[in-house]
């Protein structure tokens, strides 16, 4: 039913324009019923978008090739999971998913924040609607997923590299991240428009920001896992512009999550926070632009792209509009408090902010420079991994160091003497770990050794914080486990944050392991011949052929032994996909969980005489990267979990406010005077 899909999208566009225009008028004039109608239009737009998405979803599931999008991205042999996941496999479907998540998120964010940010909320509705309307315009007029055609016998299929379970989950998580970051941006802009620039918009959107940041972070890691297994070069992150597209907003959002704590506690950094969230949202849009406009292939394909100029225009409107708004509200945004000491936790957060933003801007320059160069000079240049690696070390190591130091410094003011006393134990652990690792051979890579030493410092500082807090609670009575869980439950934000920090350290250890200590050998083997790499011996047994639902498989099988002990077999080879008429490398992977290392085998050339060209890689500690992902989500969940005490505190504050006027709830319907302007 492509007609229903088109009609639903057109209806969503009309509803969003209504929500934008009527919502703006209602917020300006303080008209309650009009605002409620605009908010209802936002909900109705979400429903209409859901209908459009459902139409496309069903068309993909049942391979309705009368839709051009379905023909371009599926085939009859394609397994159901990939037929469904091709909803986000192409440009039009991705944009529809963006719009669906955005309209649902907008409706939910407005419904859930009615009491906390009453003065800001009216302006959030039209701003949400304006952003969603942009996507609706693109989907209705420029790049529709419901274009029809004469029904062909079969589809073109899905790019083989996208036929991977991680790719089924990676894009939706990124979109959840990108779209989730719209919530703090919209509330920040609404706070600026309404001139209510206190920290309430931050409190109202904190969990949305955390959720979006977690989704984006986990999505990036799933993308890395996909690249590791599917792209098959033995690494996990290549500083590819598409990967960087998601990393940039994540880095700035990380800075934002830290700096908002200073605004909440000290009412400082108000200008900085609105700049950070505007930059985060602009980078999220830029990420979508990079992956969807074709600009990464070449400037020419961007010029031919149907949506590239639309996106560029929208990014310009968002960036210029938010900048002008921030400048116009500078008098209200100026902080009343000052940083009391450069040696305080808030100062440490500020330094971490500067390094994070510097790293994000460096990555942005690395992504943008080839585009600028090609557009202006007509010369295609590439910015390679050495550029990114250099700045990742230059800015990354201070960030790591600050992750260890900040928890040991007091809020407001600390002294060098106190700090020295606090860091003695973690520094001692780090030095011992560094010396032991150097003696064990890790000194062959100085950056890795420094990374490990810094990681030991941070992890011991985190353990010390947990131990100190647990011991203090235990001293008041109760069991040790009870003291530990009580400690985390009483302050989820702080201790959840420490768990996230620990996950970043695991990632660093894993990344340093792969980057500095992996071993590789590229050989040509005949059946019966063997290759040895770092304790593993692989003996080539021969070639096997098979087929799946939509491809034929060729696999070279190797008997594996480790330090002389048999360790089973491993297979690697290639797949040939019928509908797509493409081949893909299918790597062999054997994980040693105890050591955290992988045996990684690529076999990409099979000769008729039975010989095979094979690359064998041993990646030490690589599995710590994936383990870090799980711990990252766990830490984020601890932080995200609702805090009943905070909710109670806000409710009691509102009750106290009501007590000023003889017990009337100030936010009850009809009990409040009109907005003063």
């Amino acid at each position: 039913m492509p007609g229903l899909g088109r009609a639903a999208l057109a209806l969503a566009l009309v509803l969003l324009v209504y929500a934008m225009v009527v919502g703006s008028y209602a917020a300006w004039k303080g008209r309650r019923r009009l605002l409620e109608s605009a908010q209802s239009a936002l909900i109705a737009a979400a429903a209409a978008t859901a209908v459009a998405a459902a139409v496309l979803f069903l068309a993909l599931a049942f391979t309705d090739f009368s839709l051009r999008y379905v023909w371009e991205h599926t085939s009859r042999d394609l397994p159901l999971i990939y037929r469904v996941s091709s909803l986000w496999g192409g440009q039009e479907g991705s944009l529809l998913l963006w719009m669906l998540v955005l309209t649902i998120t907008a409706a939910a964010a407005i419904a859930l924040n009615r009491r906390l940010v009453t003065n800001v909320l009216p302006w959030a509705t039209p701003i949400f609607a304006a952003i969603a309307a942009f996507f609706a315009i693109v989907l209705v007029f420029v790049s529709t997923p419901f274009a029809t055609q004469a029904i062909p016998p079969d589809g073109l299929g899905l790019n083989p590299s996208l036929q991977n379970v991680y790719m089924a989950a990676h894009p939706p998580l990124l979109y959840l991240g990108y779209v989730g970051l719209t919530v703090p941006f919209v509330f920040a802009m609404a706070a600026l428009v309404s001139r209510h620039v206190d920290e309430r918009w931050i409190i109202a959107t904190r969990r949305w920001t955390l959720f979006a940041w977690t989704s984006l972070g986990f999505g990036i890691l799933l993308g890395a896992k996909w690249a590791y297994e599917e792209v098959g070069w033995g690494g996990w992150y290549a500083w590819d512009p598409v990967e960087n597209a998601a990393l940039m907003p994540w880095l700035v959002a990380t800075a934002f999550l830290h700096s908002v704590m200073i605004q909440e506690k000290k009412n400082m950094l108000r200008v900085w926070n609105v700049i950070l969230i505007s930059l985060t949202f602009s980078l999220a849009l830029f990420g979508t632009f990079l992956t969807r406009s074709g600009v990464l292939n070449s400037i020419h394909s961007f010029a031919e792209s149907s949506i590239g100029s639309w996106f560029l225009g929208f990014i310009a409107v968002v960036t210029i509009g938010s900048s002008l708004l921030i400048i116009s509200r500078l008098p209200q945004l100026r902080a009343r408090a000052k940083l009391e000491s450069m040696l305080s936790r808030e100062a440490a957060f500020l330094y971490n902010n500067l390094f994070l933003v510097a790293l994000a801007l460096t990555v942005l320059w690395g992504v943008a420079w080839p585009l600028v160069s090609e557009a202006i000079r007509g010369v295609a240049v590439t910015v390679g991994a050495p550029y990114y690696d250099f700045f990742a070390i230059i800015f990354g190591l201070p960030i790591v160091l600050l992750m260890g130091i900040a928890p040991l410094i007091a809020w407001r003011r600390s002294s060098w003497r106190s700090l020295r006393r606090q860091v003695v134990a973690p520094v001692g652990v780090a030095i011992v770990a560094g010396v032991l690792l150097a003696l064990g051979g890790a000194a062959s890579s100085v950056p890795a050794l420094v990374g490990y030493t810094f990681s030991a410092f941070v992890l011991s500082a985190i353990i010390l914080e947990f131990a100190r807090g647990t011991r203090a609670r235990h001293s008041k009575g109760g069991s040790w486990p009870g003291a530990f869980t009580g400690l985390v439950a009483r302050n989820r934000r702080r201790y959840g944050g420490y768990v996230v920090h620990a996950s970043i350290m695991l990632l660093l250890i894993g990344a340093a392991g792969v980057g500095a200590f992996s071993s590789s050998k590229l050989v040509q083997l005949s059946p019966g011949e063997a290759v040895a790499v770092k304790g593993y011996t692989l003996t080539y047994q021969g070639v096997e052929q098979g087929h799946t639902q939509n491809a034929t498989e060729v696999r070279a099988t190797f008997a594996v032994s480790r330090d002389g002990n048999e360790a089973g077999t491993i297979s690697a080879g290639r797949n040939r996909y019928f509908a797509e008429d493409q081949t893909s490398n299918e790597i062999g992977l054997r994980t040693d969980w105890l050591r955290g290392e992988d045996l990684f085998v690529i076999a990409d050339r099979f000769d008729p005489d039975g010989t095979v060209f094979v690359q064998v890689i041993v990646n030490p500690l690589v599995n710590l990267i994936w383990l870090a992902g799980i711990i990252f989500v766990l830490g984020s969940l601890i932080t995200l979990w609702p805090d009943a005490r905070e909710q109670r505190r806000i409710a009691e504050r509102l009750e106290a406010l009501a007590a000023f006027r003889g017990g009337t709830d100030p936010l009850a319907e009809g009990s409040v005077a009109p907005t003063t302007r």
Partner: protein
Amino acid sequence: MGIAAIALAALLGFVCILIVARPFLRSHDADDTLDQLDAIQRHRLELLEARDRAITALQELEVDHREGKVSDADYRTLVSQLRGEAARAIAAIDAARGEADRGAIEAGSPPSEAMEHEPASGSTAPVEPGED
């Protein structure tokens, strides 16, 4: 576009119109103004927030001092500064409450309920180890 698609699209449009019109259909309340805090209420809320912020900061200071992150000298300076901030916020709340009471009496309404000089319950809870 087939008949079924047209019918479903029309149904969807009708439902959406109902959703958008609902606030006008269900509400017969004469007051059509937005439920927002006026300038006086916002000022009072800011005072309450300033009081809670100062008390939370005092609690954090206690924890940091106990864990050795703040020297005794810094602790003494900061504790007196934060107590001053909390006291000023409480005094301002008292003054605002007095004004509200006078206004209520002049208008013939009952005075405000007694406001304790206690912060919200989350803030008055005893300081727990490891709490921010």
